């Protein structure tokens, strides 16, 4: 896998090669995060086709990076004016007692013009599909889909798109795409933590529900997976002693890395990726704009089938989402 740090020459190679293999008119969506209205504006300005935003209380990660209802409405209005789109992250796992209310509210939001809703639970997925059959549903990266059969499962359940992690290889994505008729999104710019997204409850093993006392929300009590406010305190990025047979043998953090597969964009597009997704609703507006701009430039260059201009494959190290 090539991650941040791989070369410009490779990017040029793949840009030219890929353009000959994928229909030029096959649309590709560049999807950027919008933790606030300014980030949405900068993302659109930098070339995003769509942004994804969370509504307060509805999205994983808590209030950081969420919009209130007025802000969401303004975001949708901004997108409408620009001919762009907004996806809504409903990626908490709501308790049974509040799920019905959320689904009713979602019906109202769908009328506002959200393009799709991003979900993190198969039960919610099925109930939205039954209640709002016209609303496209994207399966969040937190659902842990990795394979052809995972995509088939969610396709059967009525999903319109599935988000895959950026650490998959283009050949894996191509195999998935070959057997799937729904959209494939790949989060090409993301942090890969040691444990897989959606399959980690290390933080709540040590601190459970702390965030819920700070800001009650329609979430199940405080876990990261369920969307608890502030419950991920980066336990994996804290220093740990590795102890073997009772003896300390190392001091370390669990491995994580910034993934930015700009240099392999052509390979992913050739594999049939429908949506290029950038992680980071907690990023500043400036950073969202800058990162989105890099991907837009790379995408445009690939679509032209020619040389990219001023498009180094190496992102500055500060352009990460470690602080998301």
């Amino acid at each position, binding site marked *: 896998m090539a991650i941040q740090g791989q070369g410009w020459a490779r990017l040029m190679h793949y840009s030219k090669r890929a353009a000959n293999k994928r229909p030029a008119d096959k649309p590709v969506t560049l999807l950027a995060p919008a933790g606030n209205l300014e980030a949405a504006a900068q993302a659109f300005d930098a070339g995003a086709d769509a942004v994804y935003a969370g509504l307060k209380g509805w999205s994983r990660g808590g209030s950081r990076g969420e919009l209130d209802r007025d802000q969401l409405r303004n975001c949708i209005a901004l997108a409408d004016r620009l001919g762009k789109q907004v996806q809504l992250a409903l990626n908490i796992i709501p308790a049974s007692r509040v799920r019905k209310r959320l689904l009713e509210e979602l019906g109202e939001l769908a009328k506002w013009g959200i393009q799709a809703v991003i979900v993190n639970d198969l039960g*919610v997925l*099925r109930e939205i599909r039954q209640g709002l059959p016209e609303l496209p549903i994207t399966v969040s990266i937190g659902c842990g889909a990795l394979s052809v*059969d995972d995509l088939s499962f969610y396709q059967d359940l009525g999903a319109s798109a599935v988000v895959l992690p950026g650490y998959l290889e283009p050949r*894996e994505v191509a*195999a998935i795409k070959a057997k799937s008729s729904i959209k494939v999104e790949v989060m090409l710019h993301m942090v890969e933590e*040691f444990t897989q997204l959606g399959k980690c409850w*290390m933080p709540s*093993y040590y601190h459970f529900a702390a965030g819920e006392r700070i800001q009650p929300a329609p979430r199940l009590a405080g876990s990261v997976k369920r969307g608890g406010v502030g419950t991920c305190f980066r336990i994996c990025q804290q220093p740990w002693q*590795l102890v073997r047979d009772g003896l300390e043998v190392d001091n370390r953090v669990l491995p994580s890395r910034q993934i930015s597969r700009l240099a392999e964009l052509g390979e992913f597009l050739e594999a049939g990726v429908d949506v290029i997704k950038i992680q980071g609703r907690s990023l500043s507006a400036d950073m969202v704009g800058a990162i989105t701009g890099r991907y837009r430039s790379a995408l445009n260059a690939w679509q032209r089938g020619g040389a990219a201009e001023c498009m180094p494959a190496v992102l500055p190290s500060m352009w990460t989402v470690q602080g998301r």
Partner: protein
Amino acid sequence: MQTFELNTTISNLRSLRETDLSPYDAVYLGNIYCRSFQENFLERLDDLSEGIARVKERGLRAYVTTYAAPRNDALPKVQKALETAASAGADGIEVHNLGVLRMLHERFPGLPVHIGGFANVYTDAGAAVLKDYGAVRFTPNYEISLDEVKAIADSVSLPAEILLHGKMPLGVSDSCFLLEYESKWADKCPAVCQKDLFLRQEDWAMRSVGKGVLSGKDVCLLEHLPALLAGGYRMFRIEAAYETPAYRFNIARVYRAALERAVLGDGIVDELAWHTVRQHTAVGLCNGFYFGRTGSEYVGSQGAAAEVSWLSTR
């Protein structure tokens, strides 16, 4: 009068041969974290056939577990493992991954499906979907409380399997950081993850198994068995995929005796039982999330006794 099932997890044939299974009613065969785990049943299908036969010869139920997070390259082997399980007469398949669930549902509809803890059953709505795919029991996500588990089970009419004792899974990874130590240690993959490895930060500890992270403390519900039985739970797991045969046997023997007494209305746990439990924990005891608390806390009479100074045990 058999009114409950006590089961465990065993990753390979060698460990199965070395384990006294007499306290158990059923065994899950296979290691869910890593394809490279030493002699993993899920990769050695002749061993899987033999393992299923050995378990059934003892009059126990033989279940086969499956990978928690398989990528495309693992799927052909998963399918072969399911074929082997079906032909060898496995009594059920544990599924953590929804793609594998679909494969099972479509190609092996006769095999009973047990939903595993990494399938993330948090709500009744999710469990209802899984039931439609053939699930006959579910292990809830470890983060939810017994009250929530019961609400789901009752709502969907799907029985829950409860982690009764052992190290609780906390996460699964796509990579193994223990490989970094191959150049420094004499142990290499696939043996290194079976060593006694913990991640420690002051009084916190987690067990590292390479591509997975487990709780450092052992979940222990020994003194809560009457409440579990009263709540309608009947299927219980001793999680011991990375434990020794002695752990697997001694802990299960304690629980089997306690469960049999609890069924008859006697919920008292004798001191010898507690002594055995404490002997087989490195870091201490907890209840997981079953009482709606932080997963590493212990609720019950043992309290401070559950806190074992793990350095002092070595």
